[in-house]
Each structure stands twice: as structure tokens, then as C-alpha cells.
């Protein structure tokens, strides 16, 4: 293959094609990245100066005051704690459930295999909908609890199937030899399968963690009035909704009102950055795993 941006000695039509490729790729990259850099710059800029506008990707009057302002609110610290806590518990429990189910489904000799597999697959196509689910949570007395963040979505059929197709690629002989050494099925899962499944687990861990970190609707629906249980995304949602043009009459409380009355713009952008940073740090490292996982999942399903 010829390296170099544009290969030499090629016909004009191919060169034109190359130019189109690079122009489009460049525009796409700028369009994707610019908003984030812009938000970052505004969050690091003096809030009264920001109002003048014209800030692109560099702050004009650098300051960390916006970040100091938001961390002075107890609501944000609580939100951060709850978000971290739900991300950790949700990810661990989700990994356990998905990997255990995936392991049992990968065992051709398992006599409950077909039933469990169908039972799971159906959930990808049928769901009760918003209101029946809401009433179920209410009837289970899970409203206003931390458990509502983790338990209802514990098992995800998609995750199970992604991990299973990965386990299917591991030679069965490994399990058989472990059996000869006297290992039971649980030991095989724990000592043989889990260590070999690390790439798939990393992918699923990323999906689970991002899902947990990003969700806000369950807080809105079940825990909106529980100040000690609100998540960071929910707080951000309130702040953003409170200042958009003629937003709905939101059930805003202390934090929102105070936030909105001080400097909306820069502070809003600072919260946005705080909510985004953890993901920014994690996803590039796991990229090669999830690209593989996605591809596998797509081909098999």
C-alpha cells in the first residue's frame, strides 16, 4: 500500500476522490470535537467575560472559579457520590449476571439452555412499557431507594449474548481438562472462563458503566424528591432545563434556583465538563475491545 496522504502518479479522478475523502473527514472531526472544546473553554473562562461571547477553543480570561462555585453546593457532591456508587455497583452486578448467564448458555450440555436462551432473547423484543414498569417498582416498594438504580436493569440480554459468543470461541477442551482435574462447573467458570473472557468483560464493563453513569431518567421518575439520592446527570439535567428558553415549569428546588440566579452559562458548562470527564478518560483505552465486541455481537445476532 502506498503511504502518504495522496498517492502520486494516480489519475486525476482518484486524486479528486482523495481530496473529497480528506475534506469530509476533516469537517466531520471538527464538527465532532469543536463543541466539546468550546464548552471546555467557556467553563474555564471568567463568567462575566463569557457573556461577551467570542470564545472559541481557548479561554480568554482563565479561571477555575466556575468549578469552585459548583463544588460549593452540597447537592453536587451528593450527586457525584451517588453517581459513582451506582456506577460501581451496577457494573459489578451487571458483569456477574451477564457472565454467569453467558457461561451457562455456552455449555451445549446444559439442559436448561434452550429455555433460558429463549426467555432472555424475548426481552429484547417485548417490554411492558413505561407505566406498567413504574407501577411494578411502586408495588415492590423500590421508590425512593438506591436499589432502583441497580436492580431493575440487572440482567441485559444483549450483554449476555455478546459475552456468550466470545466464550463460544474458547476451546471446550480447556473445560474438559479442568473437569478431569476435579473442578466443578462453578470453579471452571471462575478459574478458567472468567480470566479468558477479559476482553469481552472489559467491553461489557464499559457499556454498563457508561449506562449507569449517564442515566438520569430513573432518578427523575423514582427519586426526584429524594435529595440524598439524586445523581449527577439529574442535577445537570435540572440546571440545563431551568435555563433553556421558556423551559417547562420545572419542579426546581434550591440548587437549581441558586444555580440559575448566579452565572448560568459558564457554570452550566463546568458541570457539563465534570459529567463528561470520567468517560473521556476511560473509553479510548477500551476502544479495541468494544470495537471487537460490537462487531461480534452484530455478526452473531
Amino acid at each position: 500500500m502506498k503511504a502518504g496522504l495522496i498517492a502520486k502518479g494516480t489519475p486525476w479522478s482518484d486524486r479528486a476522490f482523495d481530496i473529497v475523502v480528506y475534506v469530509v473527514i476533516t469537517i466531520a472531526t471538527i464538527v465532532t470535537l469543536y463543541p466539546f472544546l468550546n464548552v471546555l473553554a467557556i467553563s474555564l473562562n471568567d463568567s462575566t467575560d463569557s457573556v461577551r461571547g467570542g470564545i472559541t477553543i481557548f479561554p480568554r480570561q482563565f479561571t477555575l472559579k466556575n468549578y469552585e462555585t459548583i463544588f460549593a453546593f452540597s447537592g453536587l457532591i451528593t450527586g457525584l457520590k451517588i453517581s459513582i456508587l451506582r456506577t460501581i455497583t451496577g457494573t459489578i452486578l451487571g458483569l456477574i449476571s451477564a457472565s454467569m448467564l453467558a457461561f451457562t448458555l455456552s455449555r451445549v450440555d446444559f439442559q436448561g439452555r434452550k429455555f433460558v436462551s429463549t426467555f432472555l432473547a424475548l426481552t429484547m423484543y417485548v417490554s411492558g412499557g413505561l407505566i406498567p414498569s413504574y407501577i411494578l417498582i411502586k408495588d415492590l416498594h423500590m421508590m425512593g431507594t438506591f436499589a432502583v438504580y441497580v436492580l431493575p436493569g440487572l440482567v441485559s440480554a444483549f450483554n449476555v449474548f455478546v459475552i456468550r459468543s466470545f466464550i463460544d470461541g474458547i476451546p471446550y477442551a480447556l473445560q474438559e481438562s479442568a473437569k478431569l482435574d476435579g473442578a466443578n462447573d462453578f470453579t471452571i467458570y471462575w478459574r478458567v472462563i472468567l480470566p479468558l473472557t477479559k476482553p469481552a468483560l472489559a467491553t461489557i464493563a464499559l457499556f454498563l458503566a457508561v449506562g449507569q453513569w449517564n442515566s438520569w431518567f430513573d432518578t427523575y421518575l423514582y427519586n426526584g424528591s429524594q435529595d440524598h439520592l439524586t445523581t449527577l446527570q439529574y442535577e445537570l439535567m435540572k440546571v440545563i432545563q431551568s435555563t433553556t428558553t421558556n423551559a417547562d415549569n420545572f419542579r426546581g428546588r434550591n440548587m437549581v434556583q441558586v444555580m440559575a440566579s448566579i452565572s448560568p452559562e459558564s457554570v452550566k458548562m463546568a458541570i457539563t465538563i465534570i459529567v463528561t470527564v470520567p468517560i473521556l478518560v476511560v473509553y479510548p483505552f477500551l476502544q479495541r475491545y468494544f470495537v471487537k465486541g460490537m462487531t461480534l455481537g452484530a455478526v452473531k445476532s
Partner: protein
Amino acid sequence: MKAVTTMKSKTSARPKSRFWHIFAQQKYLYLMSLPFVLWVFVFSYLPLWGWMMAFQKFKPAKSFLHQDWVGMKYFKELFHDDQFFQALRNTLAMSVMGLIAGFVIPIVFAVLLNEVRLGLLKRFVQTISYLPHFVSWVVAAGIVTKMLSTDNGAVNELLVGLHLIDAPIQFAGKGNLFWGIVTASDVWKETGWNTIIYLAAIAGIGPELYEAARVDGASRLQQVWNITLPGIRSTIIILVIISIGHLISIGFEKQFLLGNNLVRDYSQTLDLYALNYGLGMGRYSFGTAINIFNSVVSVILLFTANGIFKKITKESII
């Protein structure tokens, strides 16, 4: 001889005990799966039981079995409600726009990205392109609102700077722009992510096809048209069928976060309608009727799409 007959009679006469025998042997496999099956039953199947609500005059204080049955009352109410048809129109408009943009743009992007020959550049662009997929819609909506805002929003500044418009447009307050804004936001957020599958499919095309085309003097564009696109055809079709199945259940997250009272007539989807008019007002039965309508139409769309594609292209998922 004797041993064989006894074994035979054992297995044929008592199949139940054979099941329990294997069950005991596989107790760990059962221990690792049945608790979660129970879990799925509670949180995914029990809500289906709640569908009965749509045919009852549901009072939260009583159990499902002690409600008054009202038949199709709530469905009739639903089909006589103008807001329902507005929500249906909005849902279909946004999902069709999303479907078209959500296929065409990632495919084009994947094909173009595949033509980038500098490995490092390709990887860099890809990594950047996934980024928006990983941020929440709350963050994305905040960013979109900021970019479109009338005071110093990047889009307005660019358009004014290029003299395409004279004064900033108030994007957030214009109902007729809402569908486009939602679609564009979705494209911004998901294009990179949706590209993964197509790039993988392209990578699976044999290099000898391109070699042969090159020998025959095909230009790069001709190679894309005659080799790359046909090579990912079945991937595209399968994804289209799956998407059509989800056509009507586009949810409400984007619409909830990007919308406001000014654009309500264009932002309310079926799910948002169920949220506002079902849950918000405590009309559980009515809201459930909306949920059921949603699910039924989804399934019909899925089977129809599958059937049509099966006839035309011999590809299907069911």
C-alpha cells in the same frame, strides 16, 4: 444382554428421574442461571401483566384482579384524541428522518474513512468520532442547545459570519425546525459509533476483489460503487430491518431534553405522550393503552419489514 434391557427400561419408564439426575449433576449451572431467570421474569415479564390495566378502570389502591373491566374504552378515547395523532405524526416523522440519516451518513462515513490510507490518522478520527456516543443525552442536549443558542452559539455565529443569514435564528423556539434539530443531534452523536459495524464488514471484503478491479482500471469511486457497497449489502439490510422494528419506539429522551413548551406540537412523541398524559396525570390505564399501541405497531412493522425484504432480497432476520 440383561444389563442393556434394564438400562433401556430405566430411561424409558422414568424420564423424570433422568431429568433430575442431570439436574443434580448440573446444579452449579442451574445455580448460576435460574436466579437471573427469576430476575428477568420479575422485571421484564411481570410488567406485561400490567397490560391488563389498559382494559380496566385502574385504581392504584386495588390489585389487578379487583379492578373494574371497561373493555376498549381507553383505546377508543385514544383514537379520538387529537394529541394522540399529533404524537404519532411526530414519532413517525422523527423516526423516518432518523432512519434515513442514520443509515446514509454512517455508511458514507465508513466508506470514506476506509479510504484513508494513513493508519494513524484513521485511528485518530475514529476515536474522536466515538466520543459523543459515550456522553449522555443530558450532556449532548446541553451542548446542542449551547451551539444553537442566539447569544454566541457557534452555529449562529458561523451562519452570520458567512453572511448566510442576517440575524441569529432562535433554533430552540421554532417548532418547524425541531425534527431537523433532533435528527442532526442524533447524527452528531451516533455516526461514529454506527460506523463500527460497516467498517468491520468492509474489512471482511477480500482484497483480491480490489486487486482485480485495479487491474481492470477501475477508479477508486468505481471500486467503492462496485465492490465496497455490494460487499456490505447484507449487513445494511439486516440493520435496516432491525431499525424498522424499532421505528415507532424511538423513546422520548432526546425530545424531552431538547424540547420546550414553544415546540411542544412538534416534540411530543408517543412515549412522551404516555409520560405526560398517563403517568403525569395519574391516568395509568390510558397511558398503558398508549404503551400497548406502541408495542403492537413495533411488532407489525418488524414482521412487515422482514417479509418485504425476504421477498425482494432473500435476506431476513426471522
